């Protein structure tokens, strides 16, 4: 008979997490999680002490988005747990694998309205794939392994595991060698494609005159970017992506026509409206890309390939739905390119190239220091494998437009939830995962202040994140909408900002402020040469509007493009005939 060993619950839980190969944990302590904290100093896991639990959740997301493994965050009960909620909701909206561990009051106190008691599994129900309570230590391995599996399998997403304090403090008797029975779960790739649906898709694609691929986040989540690039090349079907699909294709790929949507490229939006067959790969037809559903892709039959069958005709009616992991799909779907449609596809591709040359995005005007100029200047100074995070708002859209040639899973943005405050802690999480890569957190002045308390976390945990604040002294996107749709009645958008340089310096971080392109470029180099974190405060023009734009209530066909006055005619000369879109 095997010898018995006794372990304290908290030690047992920490050991299970280590055996599941979690290496980093973003966390904040408190009363109901103290037994776990008593064990953290003895753990192999790196503990990142954030200054607000919301940042722990966003950091775990940033970590997950760049590693493809679940990010893990930890908080106490009550306010600690509820502070995680926005980050959990963000992971739910963008299908990011995450495990949120929350302390809970002692089991016998649940339901007594005890100090710092909240029903965390109840609160998180609509924004998680699953929420568990560990009531007995004997269930801990099963629950934590299952939490890992659920967060990663199928369509990834967040899982909450609530752990009452008495469970953490209890003892468990185990057989010696128990650890060898704890394994990282194998995530099986789903392949449930219905043969009839596949045949319908083959027929639709073979006979299409103007087929178009829309590639989404699913390609990154399923680690299928190599396969989709080959698929596009083999099929000779042009492709566009969603914002979360940025990185799926290399921007210089001649078959890739950038991203669509509210602030997407006009030529990408037009392509959707002209296409006669759309093959949607790992997307969910968000309203920011479809707008009026009855006017979306009016000429197209839709083939939708997705791992989540709940997406079948949820928003856009599909003509063929293939329920499959994308990697499996690319490996098994037969080629539809043949002698009779080869020329048809080439003609369509030529047409899209003409459209791309006709409707490029506005080039940077280096004579004034606006966000576009700043972003173009930054991009040309960054290494190929830079990791970019954005916050939410105007700078997010411009970063998405102008930060081209980003590697897969190296562009992190809060798309579905649109959560201001995401970008900076997400960069903290990404830098934790990739210590040796250059990580830039690009922020507006509004969003940065939502989690600016994490400046000191960078210092304490030696995370050399480079922070750019594009400061237009406004909540810029709200201001833009008030200008365009509320008769310029600016309300609640004018920001009196702190001195960001002093704020950084107060947190022992080197910082500079600039208000022109030349100084900005020098400051970028200074930031890169500095070994630690660095804050670059760029004071940019105040009232600029993001274009192209699809106004709410309209359709992709009504994409607002730049006016002639807004567009630098010199750009025409610079636009390459083939594929260059950012000058």
């Amino acid at each position, binding site marked *: 008979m095997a010898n018995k060993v006794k372990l304290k619950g908290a030690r047992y839980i920490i050991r299970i997490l280590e055996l599941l190969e979690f290496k980093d944990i973003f966390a904040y302590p408190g009363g109901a999680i103290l037994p776990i904290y008593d064990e953290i100093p003895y753990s192999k896991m790196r503990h990142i002490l954030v200054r607000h639990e919301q940042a722990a959740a966003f950091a775990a997301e940033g970590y997950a988005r760049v590693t493809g493994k679940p990010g893990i965050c930890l908080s106490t009960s009550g306010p600690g747990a509820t502070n995680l909620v926005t980050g959990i909701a963000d992971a739910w909206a963008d299908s990011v694998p995450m495990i949120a561990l929350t302390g809970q009051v002692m089991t016998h106190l649940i339901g007594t309205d005890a100090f710092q008691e909240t029903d965390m599994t109840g609160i998180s*129900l609509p924004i998680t794939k699953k929420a568990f309570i560990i009531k007995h230590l004997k269930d801990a391995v099963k629950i934590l392994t299952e939490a890992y599996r*659920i967060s990663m399998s199928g369509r990834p997403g967040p899982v909450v595991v609530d752990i009452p304090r008495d469970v953490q403090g209890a003892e468990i008797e185990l057989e010696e060698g128990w650890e060898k029975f704890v394994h990282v779960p194998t995530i099986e790739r789903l392949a449930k494609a219905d043969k009839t649906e596949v045949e319908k898709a083959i027929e639709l694609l073979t006979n299409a005159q103007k087929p178009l691929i829309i590639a989404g986040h699913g390609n990154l989540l399923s680690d299928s970017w190599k396969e989709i690039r080959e698929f596009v090349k083999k099929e000779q079907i042009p492709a566009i992506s969603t914002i979360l699909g940025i990185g799926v294709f290399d921007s210089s790929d001649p078959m890739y026509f950038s991203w669509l949507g509210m602030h997407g490229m006009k030529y990408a939006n037009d392509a959707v409206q002209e296409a006669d067959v759309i093959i949607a790969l790992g997307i969910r037809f968000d309203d920011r890309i479809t707008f009026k559903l009855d006017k979306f892709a009016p000429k197209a039959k839709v083939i939708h390939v997705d791992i*989540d069958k*709940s997406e079948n005709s949820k928003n856009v009616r599909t003509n063929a739905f293939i329920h499959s992991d994308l990697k499996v799909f690319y490996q098994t779907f037969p080629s539809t390119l043949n002698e009779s449609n080869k020329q048809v596809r080439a003609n369509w591709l030529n047409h899209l190239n003409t459209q791309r040359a006709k409707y490029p995005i506005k080039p940077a005007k280096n004579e004034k220091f606006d966000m576009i100029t700043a972003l173009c200047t930054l991009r040309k100074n960054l290494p190929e494998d830079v990791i970019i995070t954005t916050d939410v708002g105007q700078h997010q859209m411009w970063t998405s437009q102008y930060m081209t040639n980003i590697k897969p899973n190296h562009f992190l943005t809060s798309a579905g939830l649109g959560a201001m405050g995401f970008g900076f802690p997400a960069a903290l999480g990404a830098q934790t995962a990739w210590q040796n890569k250059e990580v830039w957190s690009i922020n507006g002045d509004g969003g940065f202040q939502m989690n600016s308390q994490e400046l000191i976390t960078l210092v304490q945990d030696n995370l050399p994140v480079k922070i750019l604040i594009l400061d237009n002294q406004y909540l810029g996107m709200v201001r833009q909408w008030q200008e365009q749709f509320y008769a310029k009645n600016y309300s609640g958008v004018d920001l009196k900002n702190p001195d960001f340089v002093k704020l950084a310096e107060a947190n022992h971080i080197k910082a500079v402020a600039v208000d022109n392109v030349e100084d900005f470029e020098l400051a970028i180099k200074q930031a890169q040469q500095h070994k630690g974190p660095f804050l670059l405060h760029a004071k940019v023009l105040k009232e600029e509007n993001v274009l192209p734009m699809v106004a709410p209530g309209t359709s992709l066909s009504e994409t607002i493009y730049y006016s002639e006055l807004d567009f630098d005619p010199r750009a025409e000369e610079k636009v390459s005939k083939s594929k260059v879109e950012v000058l």
Partner: protein
Amino acid sequence: MSEVQELVLNKWELLCWHTPETIDRIMLNIRKRGMMLESLDYKKIDAERAICVITFEDTWTSANRIFSNMQRIEDLIEIKRLD
């Protein structure tokens, strides 16, 4: 102007894993729309599974989207329309 759709009685049978949150997750797709169930009949059928039959009134189009949303429930094994 959008067409006004008639309310119909929807009756669905959900085969689920029997867990502490199964009923809540079924109900939240109704509750979050400000709607109410007409009936809910939940029965454990073996050690691990349960069957839940729900009825509610909604338009055909809206009910179709709820049907899609239900399929994202982790504990759902199968959903059938009985209406």
